[in-house]
């Protein structure tokens, strides 16, 4: 069935409907990963967005029940060039098309995704809609009238409703869920953490009530300013000197907690090939990224914040460290999925902090005299 993609600037592409033949709208963003469409689709950070995949053949290895970063597709739509209808992989359970239908997702194929990507690169990310309605003029009108889908609702739509704890771990860690990818929690559990996931709205008291040895601020969708309500909780955790790791949106929020300003990138970083330089180690790692905002480097208090990582492509801030407290954050995704696993050592570094904190608190507990 014929379908259209209309952008807010009036540009129109025609293609074939995939998934649900219906209408959807969202912020149109492109991702350059050549594998990992299922992880990308189920990444809650894409809430409110329509994903363009630049690799032209999608669906080749099908879809399975294990490569999900969350139980649902948070993205609003999918734009691709070619869809594979006969996937081939030992883990494949169904086609991508069926998966999209199951999750009620509107998509479009046969789009010149390279032309679209170049357009977004040049004009910047913008709103757009996909529709199977055979009336392009009307659709363009509607697209032009689209309002950005931001606001606090975006994170609220993907965060957990109430706190829950995943047992079978040694080290108590709280993950603040702004739309956490499954593999963040999994990576922590693999390293022996007893993970408690709390909603984005959790206060410092709620977080501390779980007596965590470490707190992770997760990734999540939308404009970090919309999640400013979480800053007091973050400051509370910092105050308590509990080890803190921020990932992606969590990184923005730590930056903001340190007084930093956030700005929107023209077309963001979404892909599995972004080189990030660790300034302390003078080493470069290839990272998975998915973000549309960045922390302004000179906006934070130099007494508190140290920039530890930069993006080699555009020198944007990729990592921060609190100079006096056990807190750091990174813009990219050490949990990978989709993407390279080069930076999974961050979880180990965090664990060292967690274990040190644990050792300290248990000593304090035994000695009965808190030092601070």
């Amino acid at each position, binding site marked *: 069935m014929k379908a259209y993609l209309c952008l807010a600037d009036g540009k129109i592409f025609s293609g074939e409907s995939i998934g649900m033949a219906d209408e959807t709208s969202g912020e149109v963003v*492109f991702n*350059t*990963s*050549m*594998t*990992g469409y*299922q*992880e990308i689709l189920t990444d809650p950070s894409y809430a409110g967005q329509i994903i363009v995949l*630049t*690799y*032209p*053949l999608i669906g*080749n*290895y099908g879809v*399975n029940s294990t*490569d999900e970063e969350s139980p649902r597709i948070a993205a609003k739509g999918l734009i691709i*060039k*070619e869809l*594979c209808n*006969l*996937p*081939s*992989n*030992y*883990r494949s359970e169904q086609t991508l098309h069926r998966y999209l239908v199951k999750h009620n997702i509107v998509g479009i194929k046969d789009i*010149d*995704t*390279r*032309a679209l*990507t*170049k357009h977004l*690169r040049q004009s910047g990310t913008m709103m757009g809609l996909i529709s199977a309605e055979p009336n392009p003029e009307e659709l363009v009108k509607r697209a032009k009238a689209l309002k950005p889908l931001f606001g606090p609702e975006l994170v609220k739509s993907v965060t957990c409703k109430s706190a829950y704890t995943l047992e079978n771990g040694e080290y108590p860690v709280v993950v603040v869920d702004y739309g956490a990818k499954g593999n963040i929690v999994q990576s922590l559990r693999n390293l022996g953490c007893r993970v408690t996931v709390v909603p984005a709205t959790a206060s410092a008291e709620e977080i501390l009530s779980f007596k965590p040895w470490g707190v992770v601020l997760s990734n999540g969708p939308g404009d970090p300013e919309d999640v400013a309500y979480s800053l007091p909780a973050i400051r509370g955790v910092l105050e308590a000197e509990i080890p803190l790791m921020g990932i992606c949106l969590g990184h923005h929020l730590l930056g903001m907690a340190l007084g930093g300003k956030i700005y929107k990138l023209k*077309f963001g970083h979404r*892909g*599995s*090939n*972004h*080189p990030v*330089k660790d300034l302390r180690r*003078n*080493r*470069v790692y*290839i990272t998975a990224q998915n973000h549309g905002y960045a922390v302004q480097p000179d906006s934070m208090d130099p007494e508190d914040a140290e920039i530890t990582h930069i993006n*080699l*492509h555009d020198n944007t801030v990729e990592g921060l460290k609190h100079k006096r407290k056990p807190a750091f954050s990174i813009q990219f995704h050490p949990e*990978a*999925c*989709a*993407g*390279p*696993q*080069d930076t999974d050592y961050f979880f180990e570094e965090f664990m060292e902090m967690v274990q040190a904190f644990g050792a300290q608190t248990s000593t304090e507990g035994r000695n009965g005299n808190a030092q601070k």
Partner: protein
Amino acid sequence: MPKNECLKKVMVIGSGPIVIGQAAEFDYAGTQACRSLREEGVEVVLVNSNPATIMTDADIADRVYLEPLTVEAVAEIIKKEKPQGLLATLGGQVGLNLAMNLAQAGVLEEENVQLLGTPLTAIEKAEDREIFKNTMAEINEPVPASSIVGSVEAALKFAEEIGYPLIVRPAYTLGGTGGGVADNAEQLADIATRGLKYSMIHQILVERSVAGWKEVEYEVIRDSLDNCITVCSMENIDPVGIHTGDSIVVAPTQTLSDRDYQMLRSSALRIIRALGIEGGCNIQFALDPSSCQYYVIEVNPRVSRSSALASKATGYPIAKVAAKIALGFSLDEIANSVTGATSACFEPAIDYVVVKIPRWPFDKFAKAKRTLGSQMKATGEVMALGRNLPSALLKAIRSLEMNFVTLLAPEFRKYTWKELVDKLKLMDDERLFAVAECLRRDISVEQLNRITGIDVFFLDSFRHIVCLEKMLEDKKEWTAEDLILAKKSGFSDKQLAHIMGIPEKEMREKRKALGVKASFRMVDTCAGEFAATTPYYYSTYNEEDELAPSDNKKVVVLGSGPIRIGQGIEFDYCSVHSAWAIRDAGMESIVINNNPETVSTDPDTSDKLFFEPLTLENVLNIIEAEKPLGVVVQFGGQTAINLAKPLSEAGVRVLGTGVDDIDRAEDRKRFDALLEELKIPRPVGSTATSRDEAKDIALKLGFPVLVRPSYVLGGRAMEIVYNEEELTTYLEEAVRVSPEHPVLVDRYMMGKEVEVDAVCDGAQVLIPGIMEHLERAGVHSGDSVAIYPPQTLEQAHLDTLAAYTERIALSLNTRGLVNIQYVIFDNQIYVLEVNPRASRTVPFLSKVTGIPMVKLATRIMLGETLADMGYAGGLRKPLPLVAIKMPVFSFNKLIDVEPSLGPEMKSTGEVMGLAEDFVSSLHKAFLGAGYQIPKTGEILATIADKDKEEALPLLRMCSGLGFDIWATGGTARFLYENHVPVKEVAKIGQGSPSVLDLIRGGNLGFVINTLTRGKNSQRDGFQIRRAAVEFNIPCLTSLDTFKGLLKVIEQSQGPVMIKALQDYL
């Protein structure tokens, strides 16, 4: 980490002659490396024996040594040049082995030369199977159960422990020479014997076979700070079992989920780190199609054929970056030359599909065993890019120039189902087409997957093509949508025209009228994420066109496509020089080619590169978009010349010699008329359209005669026949004769063959040099030893040759290059052939005369004259040097191919010997070609009756030099009667020891065997020659080559004297 400032002078080792398994990719890598080093102000000393390469041009490196790649010669060069560093990882396995031998011989330490980039320990870790296995065990990377053995018995014992099938891989050889898969003890004994022989260290690896698993490769780069990136992943369509060089490969991987992709990527990074490689590295995995189990199957600690492919597939210049890393830079300090703005420390994201298909030599070697396995057989390869798999695949198929236009080949229709299944199981070069025929017959992809192991994803893609073709055939009228679908799926106009039964031109017009147009997309390393500056394009249909043609004057250079026997790297050399000359002349150079190995497809070579099939449709699309002044067809071998006429008919201006004049040189009748008019003799002969006519002509001319089909070029299926019986056999077996396919019958003149290359501007003819062949006429010029300047020709001959050349060049209105082959017989000079284009000898001659032939020819095409450029006409006086071009063969890679030389070309590459005198030059040429020159010992002689008299003095000389001569019955008797000491050895199957035992014994210095006609003797001789080849004993089949070798043995003394090319000029 910035550049190591101690490095002022660096030596780069090239890879020597082109052989199967080691081709033009190392010229590409080496040339990039030289440029990359000089960019950093480092003086470069280059050693390579291959004259057909760009890297051995006097202006690519500061000091160029065209010397044999032996430890002795290179050690001399090191002593003389005193480089601080040695870069050995860009010269293939030859370069790597040579560096290791230099290190072992203590030369590097003595001369204080630092091995740059990947350290010796890392090379050893990757190359020595035992150390490699231990290293992998340390980092928990799985390798298949295996054992390194030094004897056949040990191999059999190991097989008893772990069972069959087993794969045998010899240590330290080229392209897996001598390996194979054994299903039982008998096969294992056979393969093990051969493998042990080929291994430089007499070791073979016997290993569990994972045949049928997915084969996945990663190109990885690491710097000295331990930063690592993977440039490209590749998936072989053919599962494990077929050498990756013989596999159809796609990039990036298509059937791996992110989890499996990242699993292997992480493994690749662990491996390159554990080995400690600094530079490029290729890692091959076998991945179980039904689980996430994998094995590491091979690591190449250097740039390779795969890295050239990965570079062209992604736009990421691996060799250039590897050279910078060798100088001490870290990846983040190196710029990404494609975007200009980002760093080289990133992983390319691509938004198209790349398909590579190997080019096999089976069209030349009809009798060769076509089965593919662990021994690579392809001489070259093509690559194509498309926005989907069918289009990339079909473009690649057309680039092969094998007369396939699509997947469905009519000749497969005749096969029965059983024959097809056999063909599928056989795994030969035509399997893809057999699969397509099965799909046409509606055999399910599941069943084909079960038989072939090819992934269902790929099979479904083939099915898409087959179904579409059937649908188009069945429909009477096509809608615009049908046509768009066909074009987007990669169907060519030619194929569509064929289906519709109309001329291609009409199809093209129809398509255009429907608004279906080619569009060009950029290869930018980043899937459109950043603005890119590298002008590297491929075509697709009905998408956005990214080409922004300038208003500059432009000229298109057509490349020569895949490397094959008869059309090698020499033509790429010419194309590159032409592109440079165009740029120097202030115009924009546009290169069209499809060979991923070469320098011409390095986007740095031209102003614009189009990676496309060299077909009328693709070339016209580019010309319509770019509107160049014209097209240069002289440098791309027969591939480009064949396009001259159709392009001209389509209204394109062909620069240089006119299309009609090209035809006058190539059309037999018109050419005869021309020579008649010029009063230049040629061997008499005529064209036969039936067997009877052929016999009549032969009888009239008198035997021997030279016979060949008129419709093929380059000596294919050409033979010398000595009597009527042989002629009958030839006409029955080798060719079909008909009015549409006539056969040429010429008198065969057993004289001296001479070759001339000339540059002509229409008024003047510059002859840089004349080359004489060591072998008499009858051996293909490409397989002959060519000597410059001639050593045995009289002045009168030289004058006549120059005069004839001038006359022919002028009367063909040559604008550019022309190559003429002559034979001197009974003091009379005859013309054999005129090629109105650049020849195989152009790079060789350009180097040793210092005359930039391609540059002059190109500028003539652009309107200048020789006088404008400061050159006069006439035959150039030679410099005080003797240069010898010696052919190199790959017979040991091709089972069942006849190693005897004849009118059909068989060599894959060449080396040059360069010295001040003939014997030294010939000595170097032999060494460069891999001969070990024995001073004493045993030799084997089996001489045909017709050659016995002529061979006698040579064998007597052998004896006099102290060689013990073994000979078979007839030859032994003849020598005995003539009082030459000889030991008789039994013919095959006639007692022991037989000639085969003798050859296997490994004590023979060389074998001299001349071709005997007649069924039995031919079979005997064939076995002797094959055995010699397979046991790596030099086998001479021409008395002239034999004579040359004896001269070298007799006269050359002491070590080879080395001298840089620059010092001769």
